[in-house]
């Protein structure tokens, strides 16, 4: 570090200190404490028997069929939910780009799922939409002659149910971001392409998408980190069941910490979860940078 830079930091430090201290107390300390605690056999029922066990909790995690099931469920849920919400959000954003009568009202109605509290969204899907006898989904299926399943009472359909609920809640978020990004694409660029004989699909894939890729990747990153940590909607809808068919990592950690009180083991699962999220985030950032979208991340 040059002398000039050193002086620069020395001058800035007093101003940065309060924020740095606050960050250290509310973010860095808990993270390191979790990491530290994950090395202990620590049951809240017997806190005085806390014992250092090194990486034993991590070994136990990766040999536990229940944890591996949670990991598999979480990954499947995340990939499916993010992919569907990204695709649907983008398509919806394209549809509302063109002016039409009542466009403002449609935009407002479309974002309603996003402003509903997650607990209410979970209840809404569990009771009013997916309930086998009283729910709207099975009612509409019966209208076209299909007998709907007991959605949340069977492994596969319960998994599908929580994906649908997540997509319903978060598609409007993707739509809003994409809508704003599409507004930033100059109209004359698209018009030039149309004049050159490009089709709507070609313009969308070869001109519009590359121009908004940085924002799209940022949305993708945000969605992944949100969905990977999802708890409330799933807990309300299934509590992780039937059996453990929808027990995502956050519910696994919750059960381990607050039902079994195995704090060290729970912290190990939380750290593992944070590690996976970070890994996914790094991959998405690297891909974005390679695609030439570094502007968003470097600033």
């Amino acid at each position, binding site marked *: 570090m040059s002398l000039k830079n050193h002086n620069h930091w020395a001058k800035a430090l007093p101003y940065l200190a309060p924020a740095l201290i606050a960050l250290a107390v509310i973010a860095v300390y808990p993270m390191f404490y979790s990491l530290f605690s994950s090395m202990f056999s620590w*049951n*809240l*029922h*017997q*806190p*005085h028997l806390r014992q250092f066990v090194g990486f034993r909790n991590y070994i136990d995690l990766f040999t536990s069929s*229940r944890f591996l099931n949670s990991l598999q469920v979480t990954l499947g849920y995340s990939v499916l939910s993010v992919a569907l919400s990204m695709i649907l959000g983008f398509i919806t954003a394209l549809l509302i780009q063109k002016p039409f009568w009542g466009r403002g009202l449609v935009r407002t109605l479309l974002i309603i799922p996003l402003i509903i509290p997650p607990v209410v969204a979970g209840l809404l899907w*569990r009771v009013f939409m997916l*309930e*086998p*006898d009283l729910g709207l989904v099975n009612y509409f299926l019966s209208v076209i002659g299909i007998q709907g*399943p*007991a*959605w*949340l*009472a*069977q*492994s596969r359909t*319960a998994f599908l149910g929580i994906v649908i609920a997540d997509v319903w809640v978060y598609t409007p978020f993707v739509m809003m971001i994409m809508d704003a990004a599409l507004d930033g694409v100059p109209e004359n660029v698209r018009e030039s392409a149309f004049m050159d004989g490009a089709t709507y699909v070609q313009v969308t894939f070869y001109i519009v998408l590359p121009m908004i890729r940085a924002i799209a990747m940022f949305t993708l990153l945000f969605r992944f980190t949100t969905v990977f940590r999802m708890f409330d909607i799933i807990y309300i809808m*299934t*509590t*992780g*069941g*039937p*059996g*453990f*068919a929808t027990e995502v990592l956050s519910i696994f950690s919750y*059960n381990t910490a*607050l*039902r*079994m*009180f195995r704090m060290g083991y729970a912290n190990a699962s939380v750290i593992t979860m944070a590690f996976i999220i970070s890994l996914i985030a790094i991959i998405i950032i690297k891909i974005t940078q390679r695609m030439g979208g570094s502007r968003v991340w470097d600033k």
Partner: protein
Amino acid sequence: MNMKKKVLPILLILMFAASMVVYGARAQEEAREEVVVGALARQISSALLPFLDEFEQETGIRVTIEQHSADALHDKMMLGAASKAGHFDIVYVSPSWFGAMVENDYLLPLNDYYEKYNFDLDDFVGASVDMCYYEGGSEIWAVPYVADTKVLMYRIDLFESASEQQAFKARYGYDLQVPETTEQLRDMAEFFTRPDEGLYGYGAPMMGALNWVWALTKIWTYGGNIYDSDYNVIINSPESLKAWQWAEQMLSYMPAGVLAWEYGEHLTYMTQGRLAMTEGYYQFGVTVNDPDQSDMAGNIGYAVLPRAPESGFATGKHVIGGGSLGIPSDAQNPDAAFTFLNWMFGDKDRALVWYLNGGAATRSSVFESEEVLAQASWLEDLHPIAIRSLDEVAVSRPVIPEAYMVLDAIIDGWSSVGLGNQTPASALAQTEREIARILAHRQ
């Protein structure tokens, strides 16, 4: 000048010491007079508040009730007990924490206090007393506070209909009456299952933790258990197999979504007339005949849960819900704490007023009180069933510290049967292996 310099610090030190002595004495005096109760943030806790002034006037002991959510109370209590912080003098003891609290010496045994105060348990229903003992031991660790268990609820119009009785007898060869055995219950559930009419024979919640409640209580009903007194795992027994085979059959007579039913759904179905029978906690039984809350008001009867034919029991079995009040081993004022417990819960009249304020019923005299029965006409039918169920049906859940892992193994096993992934026999074998692994250190 030097002298002056020395006097000032000495005076300051003396003043500090004197203030510490005075403060310490006051703090000690205050500690002697106050009892802090760690309670759940529920109406039953708030219903105690009107009594506190009267108790303080009579005894000079001030009682403070801190209300917390279950998780917050558990964490505060466990961490406090481990560090001997001595914050609480009385704590709510959930069956889920009971084993850990007893095994780690976080609770005081109360036998001497019971004797000293002549605290009489005769009037209390059996289930509420069972919750105060640990694993069949002779030491009593708590005072009864809240207790509940399930009763059978059935549609009176269906059971009393002449045409239904005739059709049932023609099909099964015996009279349609309130079921006394699990086999009769299964026949009647089958008989009344008419999805085309929107009617199902039976319904019970099985979502999340309610899953083990269904699976384990049926094992108990058939005479099986998870482990014996030496913690040898015995869940994979002929009794358990019969229980889970019966339970699997019963799923055919329930609405398709029961594996995802929380507490509410079976009552909603029952009060809408979509179930012929269900099993529900006593407190829910109060609402199903309430005209303000039920389309079936006046049309729902109560009975004890039916017994399994070869179990040797007089009734079915179900888990006790609720909790008790104990005194932590680090309590600052254990004598004052029990004085309050005795004053509040050892007195029949006060227990009645507490119940009428929104408290819980754990005494037969409260269930049978004219004032209570006058609150609703259907309570005269419900309360005798409730008392019998709390005496004979209710069984304590596993309360050892590993209980949650054991119960999760049961959830895993029974779910695989409910989802059609395993037979009861293979699921029980798997469940036994998993529980044996969890309890291996106890051998």
